[in-house]
């Protein structure tokens, strides 16, 4: 019998094998839940969307073209459902695209207008609410930015796989990721720097 963490048997999945699908659920549920939850910021909604993701994947198995990893395809379904849920509920992120733009650094003559100061590693280590701060900062970003930092920097998926999940080019993924990190840097800086 296969164990969680074993490579997925894609042929069995595509043949509708119930055991293979159960292995997929056991293997991918924790990460898929974390990703969807970061996008929708609502645990109950995230659980429901994750279940719907698996169901839709099963119902649409014949549309998987083997042009990506099976899990990439699965996560694309999950992200699209999460975005659809946000649209439907009309829940807006605290920050919009213009706010993200304002959090990018300014330059004059090719040089930084404002000089950053390195973060003190001792202060960082002492910050007991580090994770909560980061969580709150991510939650402020627009959903496209939340999705990309979650997939790339929290779940540490390769950038090209993240681009496929988000259905954007590699170049667009790199630009969006950079902008998201710079916005987060700005949000975190005031908490980390005394």
């Amino acid at each position, binding site marked *: 019998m296969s164990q969680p963490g074993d490579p997925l048997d894609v042929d069995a999945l595509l043949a509708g094998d119930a055991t293979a699908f159960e292995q997929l659920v056991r293997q991918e549920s924790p990460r898929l839940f974390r990703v969807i939850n970061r996008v929708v910021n609502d645990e109950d909604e995230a659980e429901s969307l994750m279940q719907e993701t698996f*169901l839709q994947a099963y119902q649409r198995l014949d549309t998987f073209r083997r042009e990506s990893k099976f899990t990439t395809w699965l996560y694309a379904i999950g992200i699209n459902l999460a975005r659809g849920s946000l649209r439907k509920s009309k829940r807006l992120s605290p920050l919009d695209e213009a706010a993200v733009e304002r959090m990018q*650094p300014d330059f004059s*003559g090719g040089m930084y207008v404002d000089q950053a100061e390195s973060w003190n590693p001792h202060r960082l280590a002492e910050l007991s609410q580090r994770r909560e701060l*980061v969580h709150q900062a991510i939650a402020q970003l627009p959903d496209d930015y939340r999705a990309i930092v979650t997939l790339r920097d929290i779940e540490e998926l390769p950038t090209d796989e993240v681009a496929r999940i988000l259905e954007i080019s590699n170049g667009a993924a790199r630009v969006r990721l950079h902008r998201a990190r710079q916005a*987060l840097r700005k949000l975190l800086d005031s908490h980390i720097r005394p």
Partner: protein
Amino acid sequence: MRLVAPLMRKMMDEPSCQEVNQFLADYVEDNLDADVSDRYRKHVAHCDCCKAYLDQYQGTIDLLHDCRNCDLPDDLVEHTLEFLKERGVTA
């Protein structure tokens, strides 16, 4: 100095802080050509602004890496399997 620096950089074929910033994601992930990466490294080594900014940028990534664990709802997997079983997906 601020007005002279861009001209000096151009003469020395040195990237500006803005150029380094533009490719920071590729720089920290070592995705740049070796000669480009080398030029950037030399710039950062003697530019306090870029050094500090890079430090914060990398610090942000490190904080995100450290953020993966979160509490999962109880019986998340079992609930999902039950949901799928009711719809004829899993046994």
